[in-house]
């Protein structure tokens, strides 16, 4: 054998053994191999890093899923059931089916219904305006229209409608909840999307008594309680002069909508109403009930 090769063999061999010894001790203690399933799960996640799942980012969520060994209570709102199912399949777990949610803006104090009384100038920030004053219409609960929610949305799913001055949520919404956190007035709520996107909700968060509420806004909930009475499913709760419809109980029968004297209850994506008296027999209602 060539001398050079011999030397090479010797010195590299020594070195190799040396590093083996060092690495043995290193490995003994703290070398970790990240659970490869984290990568798998991470790949399946939508990489929106929006935090809607309650974790700092998609990867943290993936870690949590793998560590948890169960999908209970874990949900990626962006990917929805589809993604959760795929993750479940990949990990051999059961996915919980979550009702898809969507952000709902509970204020109808448009320029028309709640006329502007004062003009605001200053930082374009609802949070600041909320600390400063009651709002341009005078309603201390209503939307300030400066779009903190819009800024917070990573999905461009919410925008301010110029004609009403109110935010509108569109179908891109993945229910990440960022806007809910951003709104200083707690106007936005995540509610089930509903079958065929049909939803009924009280579009107001004003807790004032009827009089004052009405004074600032024509379509405020005045806490009269008529809807509570008319609801056959005990789905409506009245607290602090404000009605709230529990989506778990609501059957979308739409009785309350008609009953509300201020039109504060909104229905979305329903077919036009049939003449009065027939609605109890409407086929949609039937399917909803079953």
């Amino acid at each position, binding site marked *: 054998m060539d001398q050079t090769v011999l030397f090479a063999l010797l010195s590299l061999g020594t070195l190799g053994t040396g590093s083996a010894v060092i690495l043995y001790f290193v490995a003994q203690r703290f070398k970790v191999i990240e659970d490869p399933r984290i990568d798998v799960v991470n790949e399946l996640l939508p990489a929106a890093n929006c935090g809607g799942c309650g974790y700092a980012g998609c990867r943290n969520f993936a870690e949590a899923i793998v560590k948890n060994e169960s999908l209970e209570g874990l949900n990626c709102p962006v990917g929805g059931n589809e993604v959760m199912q795929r993750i479940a399949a990949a990990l051999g777990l059961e996915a919980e089916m979550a009702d898809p949610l969507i952000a709902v803006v509970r204020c109808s104090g448009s320029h028309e219904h709640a006329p502007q*009384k004062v*003009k*605001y*100038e200053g930082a374009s920030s609802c949070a600041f305006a909320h600390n*400063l004053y009651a709002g341009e219409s005078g309603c201390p609960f209503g939307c300030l229209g400066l779009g903190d929610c819009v800024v917070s949305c990573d999905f461009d799913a919410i925008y301010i409608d110029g004609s009403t001055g109110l935010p509108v949520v569109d179908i891109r919404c993945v229910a990440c909840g960022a806007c809910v956190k951003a709104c200083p007035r707690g106007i936005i709520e995540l509610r089930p999307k509903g079958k065929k996107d049909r939803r009924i909700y009280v579009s107001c968060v004003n807790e004032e008594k009827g009089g004052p509420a009405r004074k600032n806004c024509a379509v405020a909930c005045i806490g009269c309680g008529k809807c509570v009475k008319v609801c056959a499913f005990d789905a409506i709760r009245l607290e602090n002069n404000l009605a709230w419809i529990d989506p778990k109980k609501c059957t979308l029968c739409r009785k309350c909508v008609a009953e509300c004297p201020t039109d504060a209850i909104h229905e979305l994506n329903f077919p036009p109403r049939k003449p009065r008296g027939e609605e109890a027999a409407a086929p949609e209602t039937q399917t909803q009930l079953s």
Partner: protein
Amino acid sequence: MKQLTISGSPHVHGQDTIRGLMYGVVLAMVPAMLVSVYFFGLDAVRVMLISVGACLLFEFLIQKYLLKGPVSITDGSAVITGILLSFNVPSNLPWGILLIGALVAIGIGKMSFGGLGRNIFNPALVGRVFLLISFPVQMTTWPIPRPIVAEGITDAITGPTPLGILKEGLRKGESLQDLSSQLPDYLTTLMGNHGGCLGEVSAIALLIGAAYMLVRRIITWHIPAAYLGSVVLFSGIFWLIDPTYYADPLFHLLTGGMILGIFFMATDYTTSPMSPSAQLVYGAGAGIITMIIRIWGAYPEGVSFAILIMNAVVPLLDRGLKPRRFGEAIKAQ
């Protein structure tokens, strides 16, 4: 009574506006512009027009078509960049190169960072240094000033800048005394009748503008004073050590765009620090780096590089040298 307006306090606003300040700077540069036209003739006008026009145009195009945001070319900042860029090039620079300079200044130096107020580096200097390194020949061929009144407009002859003469001479091993015959005297450098960029020739015109900016409080004294002071100190020490090899402080101050740099470029708001103490350090640092480059570096003048380097340190200075906080000096009794 109309609708009431509501907003947080304060409910009144001072006189200063961006436009007011920016056009104030432009006004302060007018004397130097006039002198440059006097010395370099129509060429100076050509260079200034192309430079300012190109800066405005590129800013407009980028804001409108690339960033698709509001267009704010009227705020005056691009005009300043344009004028300063033209002040930093020789008057015979081909227009193509000038366009590249403007594109680099505005496109790379300013808009890539998001535009006014967000850039780290002085845009005009980014453009200038980019050109200097890219086109060393064209950027260092200096026409000799020939007052239009005296000669009319002819093809200019070229010649070196005072600092160029100095650096070359010293490299050849000549002493300052040998060189003094070639170097312009102080009066000439003060008035501007020597080779150089448009804006580095006449110290007096620049000083008039600087005084105007100081009086109108467009700029504060901190950066210029520290810059000036450190240059004088640094060059003074070396001059005292060996006056045959090191030029005197006044020579350094009056040549190589030092005045332009000190008062118009080191003071750029966006790229200079915020607190007075940080401004002093910034100015002093720029002065020292300028002198290091001038004395030991390859380039005869170092103002542009020094300011750019200090620009990079500004975030650290801002972070480390805070304004004196109320209640900090005197500990609780």
